[in-house]
């Protein structure tokens, strides 16, 4: 994994309490009821954290079919005809509770952080070489997750941990494929040895029964039929990101975290 998925994971684990602190319009009991209903009614397809599965991800700032509250409630209530999204059996109050939870899956409010985001931006681009692997607004590498809206998806505490200890919390995966893209998108690290002895590794881009595609740290995509490989390994639970514990000072880490928290897409 995948800082991005890892961060998403932690954000989602911590997210409920953050919501509670920042969304006074919804009571704690309602929110927990909304989450509980979500786990039972929605998570089977959309994933327990809204990360997607056979259904699309809901942990994004903008839901394509539910761009506002009324549309979200309508989609939950009526389903989406012609798709596997069924109409709901919940009553109006329960639908609102689920909608509140869904709406918050992709909306982390700004956190107060101590660092200087402008200084963090400079460190990101210079000392950290972060853009070699990560992209923001379409510029940068593709080896690691896109960070354009990472401030909407992750909390500061987790961003800091992912910088100092990238392998600390790496879920194996959420599901084989995201339902809306058909791609795994979990940056699983893979290693292969070809039959002519070449050793290659990278982040999985896609996989099927017969073939594997992965991107190496130089952003080159490799594709092999598995029958052409002497060895093929999946490194579940590992991250290829280096630790920045000894690269950045504490103050610099604060600055980089402040910059990442500020990345919330176009205003």
């Amino acid at each position, binding site marked *: 994994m995948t800082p991005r998925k890892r961060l998403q994971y932690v954000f989602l684990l911590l997210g409920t309490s953050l919501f509670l602190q920042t969304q006074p319009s919804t009571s704690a009991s309602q929110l927990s009821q909304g989450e509980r209903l979500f786990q*039972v009614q929605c998570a*089977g397809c959309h*994933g*327990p954290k809204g990360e997607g599965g056979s259904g699309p991800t809901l942990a994004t700032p903008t839901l394509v079919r539910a761009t506002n509250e009324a549309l979200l409630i309508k989609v939950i209530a009526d389903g989406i005809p012609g*798709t596997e999204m069924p109409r709901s059996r919940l009553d109006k109050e329960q639908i609102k509770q689920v909608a509140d939870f869904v709406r918050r899956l992709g909306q982390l409010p700004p956190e107060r952080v101590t660092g200087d985001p402008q200084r963090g931006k400079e460190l990101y681009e210079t000392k950290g070489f972060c853009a070699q692997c990560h992209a923001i607004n379409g510029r940068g590498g593709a080896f690691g997750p896109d960070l354009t809206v990472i401030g909407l998806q992750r909390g500061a505490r987790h961003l800091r941990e992912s910088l100092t200890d990238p392998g600390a919390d790496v879920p194996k*995966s*959420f599901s084989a494929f995201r339902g809306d893209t058909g791609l795994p998108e979990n940056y699983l690290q893979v290693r292969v040895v070809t039959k002519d002895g070449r050793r290659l590794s990278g982040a999985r881009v896609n996989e099927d*029964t017969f073939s594997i595609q992965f991107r190496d740290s130089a952003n080159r995509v490799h594709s092999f039929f598995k029958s052409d490989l002497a060895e093929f390994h999946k490194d*579940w639970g590992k991250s290829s990101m280096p630790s920045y514990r000894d690269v950045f000072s504490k103050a610099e880490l604060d600055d980089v975290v402040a910059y990442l928290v500020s990345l919330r897409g176009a205003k």
Partner: protein
Amino acid sequence: MKTIILLLLITPTALAQVSYERIRRAEAEPGNWLTYSGNYQGHRHSPLKEINPANVARLKPAWVYQMRDPGKVQTSPIVVDGILYITEKPHVVTALDGKTGRPLWSYRRAVSPDIRGCCGQPNRGLAILDDTLFLGTMDSKLVALDVRTGKQRWEVAVADPKLGYSITVAPLAVKDKVIIGIAGGEYGIRGFLDAYDAKTGKQCWRLWTIPGPGEFGHDTWEGASWKTGGAATWVTGAYDPELNLIYWGTGNPGPDWNGDDREGDNLYSDSLLAIDADTGKLKWYFQYTPHDVHDWDSNQTPVLFDGLVDGRMRKLVAHANRNAFYYVLDRVTGEFLRGAPFIKQTWAKGLDAKGHPIRLPDTFPTIEGTVVHPGIGGGTNWQSPSWSPLTRLFYVMAHDGQAQTYFKMKEEYRPGESFEGGGFRNLIGDEPPGAVKAIEAETGKIRWEFKTHSYTSAGLLSTAGSLVFGSSGEGHFFALDAESGKPLWRFQTGARITANPISFLVDGKQHVAIASGQALFVFAID
């Protein structure tokens, strides 16, 4: 005069007459595919052998037919004398020229606003009898079409869609009747199996899959729970012409994940029913999962064959069940003979001498969630298994090691609304594979398996060419050696496959067909 008679006999109209006797002897005309599973016995086995391990590497697309409407396609074509008859979403039936893939006619029906359905609007195919095709619809109608033109002959209302009933199953034509099942097990329906007169559409019989007051088994339901107990009949069954028995699986009891208000075994949910084809009377039943609380439907295609058990040749019916066990029963009496898990399961210690599961504690869904193997998809689901008379292996596309967390919640029945009493979710960190498994049909022992990257509800086809055709969730249609499971050929269709393959002849050449995405792919050797 003799010439004129001969010409009349070989006109297309005459050739399109598919009598009951033709379906009964389907093996005698391997170039056609006359009923859902290829024959009444549920084998999905083609006697064709032109395509075989020596030449399958040369298999290429002959043509592709793109459907017009988006959505899940599960159709299994009927093929008669070089013409394919397929269902498309939502209610479209199209006749395709087998040589070119060009449409010959298309029947399109308006979509009713009353339709429900848990899982998209799939349709698994048609039945044919004489010169009439039969279609079940999402708004629970049975429709008869002129096979020559697609013009509608009659339609009947099978059930009220506003109560959650729908039809996704391919009908089964038996003698002069059309047998049709019903879906809706997630909507608090009371399940049934119906027979209609093929000429007129008049109902011949109905077998309720939940016994009414005064009938045997009624007391296996608490209070009024029998009225909303599910036990749907949404996958095509099999038929033994000699015994005149229809074998049809039933679905989960409802609500799916909360059995608190339906204490008891909940007959005949999750069962195999043996039914007199003429009268609709129940001859015997075998319940696989009494009082199911995991949505482990038992609708999987029953497979009929004769085999040696304990030194004696017997008429058997085999069933790879969603609950993870493979069963062999005597199909004359329903006696349990063999049973063994074909994938990992954590809900039963095993089966007792009568085939009843010995349940383990703490496996029922809870408010907090209970993790159980198999997951909601079960060991397998509606996708067709295959049985080869040559290898005597039972092939099944299986989940291979997925657990899920099951939840229950309190839910009141509201007519026409989903009634499931809980839910399920994937485990974090789970990327479960699928597997084609070859099971020794009489014993349940697994001979070989071929793992796929992910699981998909895609059926299997075995052929006399010693091949097994299957599909993957990532879009591969592939061929395995029927004896060893070794992959011999593959083609990337570009979309998830959730359909059952068939094989047929066009101008004497063997073809294989599979629906993928919103297209029908047809393959032949160059």
